[in-house]
C-alpha cells in the first residue's frame, strides 16, 4: 500500500473537518464571486446586442458617429435607398430609433423612458415584432407592440394585455394603444421597448423628419458575397454612413461597452478581487496547515522523503481544495444566475466554456497559494526532530 502525495494530502486535509469546511467555503465564495462577475459581464454584452441579433438583415448602415445603439445619431435615409442600386441587394428597411416617456397605466403618476423603434410595416426584417397580422395592426394610428420582457416599472402590460386584449396609455403625452406583445428582454442601457410603424414613430416624436433614420437594414440576395457587396457600397457612397456586416455590427456594440465604458474594467476588477479573496483564504489555510505539521514534515524528511515530495503534497492539498470548493461554488453560482435572470431579465446563463475557465482559474489560484505556503516547508529541518 503505497501512499502517494495526493492520498496523503487528502488524508491530511480531511482529518480536520472544520478547517476543511472553512477552506472549501473560502474557495466556494471566490468561485461564486468570479462566476457572478463573469456572468454579469457576459450578460451585459449579450443583452446589449439583443436588437442586433433579433433583427433580420445582412448589412447594417449606421452613422459614423454612432457609438452604441441605445441613442444613435441619424443619417440621411437616401443613403439607404442608394444601396438598392448595387448588385446583390434585395431589399432595405429604414429604422427610426428614439427614447420616449412612457406612462405606467397602472400608476399614471409614474413615467419612464422607453426605447422606441419605428419601421415601415410593409417592409421585412421585423419578424421580432410578431406575425404579419400583428404587424399590420401597426398601420393604424397610435398603435404599438410592447416587449413583454420589459422591466416591471413600465406596468403589468403583458398581464393587462392578455386579460383585456389591449392596453391604453400615454407616450410623450400622446394616447396610444398596445396591440400586441413580443419578447426581447432588457439590457443595461434599455429597460423596456416598443415597436411601431414609421408614421406612428413620427407622431410620437413630432420633431423628427422622415428623411433622417438611425439604422438602415440591408438584405442581400442569396449566394452573394457579403464582404464584397459591403466593400462596394462603402467605397461608392459618401462617408456620412458606415456599412457593417451583421458580425461587425454586433462586435461594434460589444467593443463600445468593453472599451469605452468602465464596465469591462469594473467586472475584470471584480474577478480579480474574487480571486484575491480566494487566494488569501487558501493561503491562510495551507500556511497554518503546514505550520501545524512542521514536525511531521521534518520527520518525513528524516525518513528520507524529499522536499519535492512535500511540495507535491502541499500542491495536492491546494488542488483538492480547488476542486472541493468549485463544486458548491458552481452550484451556488447557478442559483445566483437563476435569481438574477428572473429579477433583471438579463441573459445571465452558465456556459461550459465559462465553467471550465473558472475551474482552471480556481486551480491556478489555489496553486499560487500553495507556492506561497511552500516557502514555510523549508523550516522543516530534519536535524530539529531530535
Amino acid at each position: 500500500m503505497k501512499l502517494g502525495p495526493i492520498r496523503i494530502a487528502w488524508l491530511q486535509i480531511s482529518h480536520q473537518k472544520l478547517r476543511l469546511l472553512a477552506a472549501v467555503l473560502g474557495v466556494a465564495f471566490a468561485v461564486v464571486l468570479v462566476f457572478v462577475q463573469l456572468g454579469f459581464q457576459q450578460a451585459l454584452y449579450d443583452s446589449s446586442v439583443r436588437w442586433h441579433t433579433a433583427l433580420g438583415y445582412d448589412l447594417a448602415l449606421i452613422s459614423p458617429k454612432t457609438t452604441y445603439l441605445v441613442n444613435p445619431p441619424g443619417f440621411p435615409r437616401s443613403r439607404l435607398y442608394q444601396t438598392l442600386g448595387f448588385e446583390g441587394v434585395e431589399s432595405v428597411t429604414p429604422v427610426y430609433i428614439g427614447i420616449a416617456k412612457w406612462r405606467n397605466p397602472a400608476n399614471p403618476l409614474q413615467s419612464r423612458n422607453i426605447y422606441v423603434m419605428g419601421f415601415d410595416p410593409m417592409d421585412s426584417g421585423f419578424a421580432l415584432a410578431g406575425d404579419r397580422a400583428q404587424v399590420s395592426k401597426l398601420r393604424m394610428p397610435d398603435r404599438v407592440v410592447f416587449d413583454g420582457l420589459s422591466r416591471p416599472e413600465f406596468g403589468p402590460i403583458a398581464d393587462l394585455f392578455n386579460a383585456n386584449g389591449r392596453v391604453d396609455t400615454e407616450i410623450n403625452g400622446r394616447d396610444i394603444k398596445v396591440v400586441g406583445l413580443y419578447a426581447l428582454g432588457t439590457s443595461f442601457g434599455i429597460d423596456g421597448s416598443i415597436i411601431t410603424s414609421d408614421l406612428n414613430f413620427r407622431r410620437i416624436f413630432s420633431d423628427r423628419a422622415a428623411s433622417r433614420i438611425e439604422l438602415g437594414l440591408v438584405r442581400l440576395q442569396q449566394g452573394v458575397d457579403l464582404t464584397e457587396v459591403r466593400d462596394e457600397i462603402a467605397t461608392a457612397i459618401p462617408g456620412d454612413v458606415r456599412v457593417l456586416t451583421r458580425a461587425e455590427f454586433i462586435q461594434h456594440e460589444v467593443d463600445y461597452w468593453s472599451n469605452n465604458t468602465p464596465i469591462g474594467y469594473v467586472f475584470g476588477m471584480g474577478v480579480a478581487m474574487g480571486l484575491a479573496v480566494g487566494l488569501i483564504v487558501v493561503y491562510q489555510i495551507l500556511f497554518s496547515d503546514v505550520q501545524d505539521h512542521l514536525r511531521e514534515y521534518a520527520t518525513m524528511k528524516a525518513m528520507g522523503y524529499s522536499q519535492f515530495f512535500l511540495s507535491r503534497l502541499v500542491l495536492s492539498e491546494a488542488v483538492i481544495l480547488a476542486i472541493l470548493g468549485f463544486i458548491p461554488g458552481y452550484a451556488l453560482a447557478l442559483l445566483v444566475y437563476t435569481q438574477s435572470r428572473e429579477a433583471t431579465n438579463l441573459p445571465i446563463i452558465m456556459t461550459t466554456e465559462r465553467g471550465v475557465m473558472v475551474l482552471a482559474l480556481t486551480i491556478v489560484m489555489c496553486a499560487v497559494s500553495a507556492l506561497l505556503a511552500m516557502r514555510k516547508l523549508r523550516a522543516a529541518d530534519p536535524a530539529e526532530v531530535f
Partner: protein
Amino acid sequence: MTAAETPIIADSVDYQYDSGLGRHHVLRDIDLKINGGEIVILTGPSGSGKTTLITLIGALRSMQSGSIKVFGEELCGASQRSLKNTRRNIGFIFQQHNLLDYLTVAQNISMSLSLGDRLKKAQGRARIEEVLERVGLRDHIDKYPDALSGGQKQRVGIARALANRPKMILADEPTASLDKESGRNVVNLIQELCKEQGASVVMVTHDIRILDVADRILHLEDGQIQSTSSAVASNTTQMLRLLNQHDPQSAQYMTAFSLALTRVALADNHMDEQERMLIQSTLLEQSGLEAAEVDMVMEMALSQVRCRKSEPGTSGPQFSPQQKQQFIQALHAVAAADGEVSPEEVAEIQQIASELGFGT
C-alpha cells in the same frame, strides 16, 4: 573492515555552532566505530553534543569537518540528495513518537515502507501486520494514534523504524515521555528486534535505568568522548557527595553495612552466588534498608570483594604490568607525602599489593 561489519566509522569529527555570542564548539575530535549488531548508548549531560553527534551520524545535518562513513558512504561534503538516500537506510526512533496523527497505524508504518524496496500491496500489508505483531499491537492496526497510549505510540514508532528492516537504528531519548514500565518495555523491544535483525543501534538517553541493554556506553562531556570508568566515577562521586550532604545518617548506615559485609565475605575469602542471594534477602528483612539501598550496599561490598585476589591460579583481577607499576609507585608517593617512608610502610604496601592482585 567492510561497511557491513562496521556500519559507522567516525574520524576526527568537529562541529561548531555560530550563535550571536560567538562560536560554540559542540564536538571536538570525535573518533568512533560502531560495529554491526552492536547496541551503543550515548550519554552525557545536556549540551554535551550527543544530539548533534547522532544527527550527524543520521545524515540529518551537514558536516563541517572530519569524516563519518555510514555503510561505507562518506557524509562529509555529501549532497542533500545523497544524505537523503543515506537516511532511507536508517530507522529513526524519536523522543516523541512523531506519528502522523491523520494516518492510521498501518498507514504510518507504510510511510516508511513506501520508501524502501517496492513491496506489492499484499506483501506490504503482511509486513505491517508482522511488525505490529512483534511490538504487540496487531489489534490496533487500523486505529489512529490519538486512540493509543504513550507507550503504544512509541511502539508504533519502533515498528515504523523497523518495518523497512534497516541495518541501523538511531534513537533519541525513546523513553523520555514514558513511565518506568513502558520505558522498559520499549527498550527491551528495541534490543530484542535489533538483535533479531542484526541492526546496530545508537541510542541517546539520560535514562540510567536502561543503560544495561547497551553493549557499549559512550559518555560525551563537553563535546568529547570520555572513558566509561571516568564517566561512572564522576557520576558516582557526585551522587555519593549529594547523599552525604543531604542524608548523612543513611549514608553512614549503608557504608557501615558495606564495610561489615566486606569483612564477613572476606572471612572465608570467598562469596558465591548462593551466599550473595542469602545475604541480600536477610538484609532486606532485617536491616530496615529499602531494596535499592540493599542493592547499593551489596554492590559496594562486592566491588571490593571482586578486586581481592582469590586463590592463586583462579580468576582474580587481571591488571596490566603498567597498571601494576603505577599502582605501587602511587602508593609509595602517597606514603612519602607525609615525610619519610618507613620500612614498615614499605612492607605494608607490598602486602596490600599482593593481596589485591598487584604482586609481581
